[in-house]
C-alpha cells in the first residue's frame, strides 16, 4: 500500500517522535535534583551517580536483608540515609514527603512507570524521634 | 458391562450461557470484594487480632478439603478396581481441580499482601506446613491433570492405574497437610492434636462425595441423560459410610478431650457453653451434617428417593460449613489458656477476660469472597463438562452396572 519512500518517511517520523518524547521526559543522564535538599549541594550520591541510578534497587534489597537479619545499621546503603539526603523542605521548613509528586523518587519512577513499594511501610520524611 | 461413551454436556445454549453468566457474576463480585478488602485493609472485615482467620478461610478450607475428597470417586475405580466407578472418574478429576482452584483463589485473595504471592512461591520455610501445602496443592492439580489425561486419552489408559495410585497417595498427604495446619498448633486447645489430620481426611471423603453426587445428578437431569439407581445408590451408601466415619472421629476427639482435665473448659465450650459455637456443633455438625443425612441415606423408603438423597447431600454440605466454622472460628474464639489455674480479670488485648470468648461476626466482603470461590469452582466445572467429554452419555443400570443390570433387581 505504501511505497518505499513513504515507508521510510513514516519510520523516520516515528523514530524522531520517540526521541523527542524521551528527550522531554523528566529524567535524563544529566538530570540533577533541584530544591533545598542536602543532595543538591553534593557532588555525587553514596556511590557514583550512574551506578546508583542503575543499581539502587538491588543495593536496597540486599541491604534490607543485612539490616533486618544481621542488625547492621552502619552502612551507606540504608533507605533512611537516602531520604535524609534527598528530602526537600517546604518554605516553613517542614520536610516534604520524598515520594510525592514532583519530589525526588517520583521524578524518575513516574517516568519509568515503576511502582514504589517502600513507603507503604517506610516513613517518607525523616522523623528523628 | 457395555463400553461407555462420553460426550459433552448438551443442555440448550441459552441455559448454558445463562448459567455461566450467573456464576461469572458471583465470581466477579467475589473478586471485587477481594479488591475492596485489599485496598482498604482488613479493617473492613470482621477479622480482628483475636480472630485472625474468618469466613474466607471457612470457605477456602472447605473447598480444598472437598477437592481432595472429590477425587475419591475416581480413586475407588482406579486404585481399588471397582468397575462401576470407572466411568465416574473423569468428572471426579475435573471437580477435584475446580474445587481446589476455587479454594486456593479465596485463600490467596485474603492474604494481607496478595501482591506478594510471588514471594510465597520463592521464599520457602520448609518447617512450615503452609509452605508444604503450597507445593502439595499446586502439585495436586498437575497430578490430577495428568491423571485425567491418562483416563481420557485412549492410548494412555494403561497408565491410569499407576497415576491413579500416585494421585491417591498425594491426596492423602495433601489432606493430612491441611488438617495439620491446625493439628500442629500447640497454642490452642482446639487444635494441637494428631487426630485432626485423619479427621480432615474423612471429612474430605464426606464433602467430596456429597458434592460429586449433587453435580452428577444435576448435570444428568439437566441434559436428560439416564442415571440409574445402581450408581446413585452405590454413591449414597459410600457417603453414608463416610459420614459414620466422620461422626466416629468427632466422638473420639471429644471423649479424649474429656479425659484431659486441662481441656475440660474447651469441651464444655463446644458442647454446652459456647452459644453459637455449641449450636454449630450440635445443630450444624451433628444433626444437619451427620445424623439426619445418615438416617435419610439408610432409610428404607427415603433412601430410595432421588430428591431425598439430593437433600441429604445438601444438608451434609451445610453441616460441613458449620463444622468448619466451629473448628476455625471457635478454635480462635475460645480464650487461650495463658495462666492455667487463674482467671484473667483485666486485659489490654482481649485475653478472654473472665472466660469471655473473642467476638467475631462475618462481614459482607468476606462472605462474597467465599461465595466467589464456590462460583469459580462451579464455573470451571460447567465449562469443563461442556467443552470436553467428562460426562458419560448414559449411566443407566444396564450400561453402568458391572453385573449387567442384575444388581438393581437385587435391591
Amino acid at each position, binding site marked *: 500500500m505504501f511505497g518505499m519512500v513513504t515507508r521510510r518517511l513514516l519510520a523516520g517520523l516515528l523514530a524522531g517522535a520517540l526521541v523527542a518524547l524521551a528527550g522531554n521526559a523528566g529524567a535524563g543522564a544529566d538530570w540533577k535534583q533541584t530544591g533545598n535538599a542536602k543532595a543538591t549541594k553534593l557532588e555525587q550520591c553514596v556511590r557514583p551517580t550512574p551506578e546508583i541510578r542503575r543499581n539502587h534497587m538491588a543495593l536496597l534489597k540486599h541491604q534490607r536483608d543485612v539490616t533486618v537479619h544481621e542488625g547492621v545499621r552502619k552502612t551507606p546503603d540504608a533507605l533512611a540515609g537516602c531520604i535524609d539526603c534527598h528530602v526537600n523542605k517546604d518554605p516553613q521548613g517542614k520536610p516534604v514527603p520524598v515520594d510525592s509528586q514532583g519530589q525526588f523518587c517520583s521524578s524518575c519512577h513516574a517516568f519509568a512507570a515503576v511502582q514504589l513499594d517502600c513507603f507503604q511501610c517506610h516513613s517518607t520524611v525523616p522523623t528523628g524521634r | 458391562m457395555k463400553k461407555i461413551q462420553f460426550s459433552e454436556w448438551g443442555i440448550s445454549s441459552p441455559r448454558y450461557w445463562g448459567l455461566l453468566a450467573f456464576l461469572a457474576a458471583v465470581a466477579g463480585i467475589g473478586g471485587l470484594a477481594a479488591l475492596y478488602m485489599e485496598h482498604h485493609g482488613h479493617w473492613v472485615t470482621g*477479622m480482628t487480632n483475636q480472630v485472625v482467620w474468618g469466613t474466607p478461610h471457612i470457605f477456602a478450607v472447605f473447598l480444598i478439603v472437598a477437592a481432595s475428597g472429590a477425587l475419591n470417586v475416581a480413586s475407588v475405580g482406579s486404585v481399588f478396581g471397582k468397575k462401576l466407578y470407572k466411568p465416574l472418574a473423569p468428572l471426579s478429576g475435573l471437580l477435584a481441580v475446580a474445587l481446589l482452584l476455587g479454594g486456593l483463589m479465596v485463600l490467596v485473595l485474603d492474604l494481607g*499482601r496478595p501482591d*506478594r504471592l510471588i514471594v510465597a512461591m520463592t521464599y520457602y520455610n520448609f518447617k512450615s506446613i503452609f509452605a508444604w501445602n503450597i507445593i502439595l496443592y499446586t502439585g495436586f492439580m498437575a497430578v490430577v491433570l495428568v491423571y485425567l489425561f491418562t483416563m481420557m486419552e485412549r492410548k494412555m489408559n494403561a497408565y491410569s492405574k499407576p497415576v491413579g495410585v500416585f494421585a491417591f497417595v498425594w491426596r492423602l498427604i495433601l489432606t493430612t497437610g491441611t488438617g495439620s495446619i491446625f493439628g500442629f498448633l500447640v*497454642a490452642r486447645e482446639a487444635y494441637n492434636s494428631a487426630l485432626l489430620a485423619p479427621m480432615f481426611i474423612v471429612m474430605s471423603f464426606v464433602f467430596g462425595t456429597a458434592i460429586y453426587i449433587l453435580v452428577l445428578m444435576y448435570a444428568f437431569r439437566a441434559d436428560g441423560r439416564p442415571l440409574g439407581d445402581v450408581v446413585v445408590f452405590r454413591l449414597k451408601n459410600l457417603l453414608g459410610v463416610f459420614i459414620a466415619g466422620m461422626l466416629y472421629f468427632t466422638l473420639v476427639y471429644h471423649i479424649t478431650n474429656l479425659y484431659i482435665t486441662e481441656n475440660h473448659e474447651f469441651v464444655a465450650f463446644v458442647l454446652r457453653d459456647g452459644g453459637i459455637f455449641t449450636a454449630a456443633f450440635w445443630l450444624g455438625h451433628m444433626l444437619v451434617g451427620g445424623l439426619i443425612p445418615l438416617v435419610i441415606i439408610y432409610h428404607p423408603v427415603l433412601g430410595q428417593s432421588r430428591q431425598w438423597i439430593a437433600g441429604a447431600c445438601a444438608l451434609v454440605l451445610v453441616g460441613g460449613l458449620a463444622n468448619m466454622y466451629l473448628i476455625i472460628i471457635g478454635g480462635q474464639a475460645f480464650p487461650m489458656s495463658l495462666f492455667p489455674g487463674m482467671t*484473667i480479670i483485666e486485659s489490654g488485648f*482481649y485475653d478472654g477476660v473472665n472466660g469471655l470468648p473473642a467476638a467475631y461476626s462475618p462481614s459482607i466482603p468476606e462472605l462474597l469472597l467465599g461465595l466467589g470461590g464456590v462460583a469459580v469452582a462451579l464455573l470451571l466445572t460447567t465449562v469443563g463438562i461442556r467443552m470436553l467429554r467428562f460426562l458419560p452419555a448414559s449411566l443407566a443400570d444396564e450400561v453402568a452396572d458391572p453385573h449387567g443390570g442384575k444388581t438393581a433387581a437385587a435391591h
Partner: protein
Amino acid sequence: MNTEPTDAGRREFIGKAAAATAVAVAPGVLLHAAAEAAPRGEPVTSKVRWGMLIDTTKCADGCRACVDACDKENGLDLQTRPEGEDAGKWNQQRAIWIRKVKVRDNLTGRVTGLPVMCQHCEFPPCVDVCPTGASFRRADGIVMVDRHICIGCRYCMMACPYKARSFIHEAVEEKLTHAPRGKGCVESCNFCVHRLDNGRTTTACQDACAKDGHAAIVFGDLRDPGSPVAKALAQHQSNQIRPELKLNTGVRYHGL
C-alpha cells in the same frame, strides 16, 4: 608558716601524672560514649541473648507506663481509627505490642498484674509456621518479622501461644523512620531492636517503668553474667508463662 620555696619538680610531676591519667582515661570515656551511640557495623552473633525479667510484685496496679512508652517509641500511638469504623471493633483491630494483664488465682484469690508481650522464645512456634520465613529468630535471640517478605497470612498469629502478634488492618499514614510498619503485615514486640542495633541497651518499656519509680522491668543480655538482667535472674525466683510448652522464653516473670 612554711616559707620553703615550693618544689617545682614535685608540682611538675603531679601535673604530668594528672595529664597522663587524663590522657589515658579520656579516650576510654569517649570511646564508651561512642560505643553507646554507634550503629552496629558487624552482624549480630549468638554471643548475646537479649532477655527480660519482669517483677510482678513491683508492677503497679493501673499503671500503663510501659504500654504508653512502647506505643510512643514504635509509632503505635500514631494509629488512627479508619473513617467509618466502629470504635469497639477498632479496639480489637489496632496493633498492640505490649499489654497489661491482671490475673486472679482461682484457689487463693491472689491478684497479680503483669505486662505481656512477645516472649522471644528460643523455639518460637511462630517461626516454625511462617511459610516464607518472614517470622524469624535473630542470632541474638530477638524474634521478629521481616516485613519485606511477610505475605500477611496470619498463620504466626494462630500459632503464637501468647497471642503476642498484631496484624495491621489499615493503611498506615504516619510512621517513624526507625519503626517502619504498613498495611497487610504482622508485627510484634522486637525488644526495641532499632535501639539495640544503634548501640543502646535498654528498651522503651524498661526506661518508662524505671522512670515511673517501679523498675519492674529489667532488660539485658542473658549471656552476660554481669548484666542487670542476669544478676536479677540469679537473685529472684522466676518462671515462664506456659512453661509446659518448653519454649525457653527470653522473658521471665517473678512473682507469678
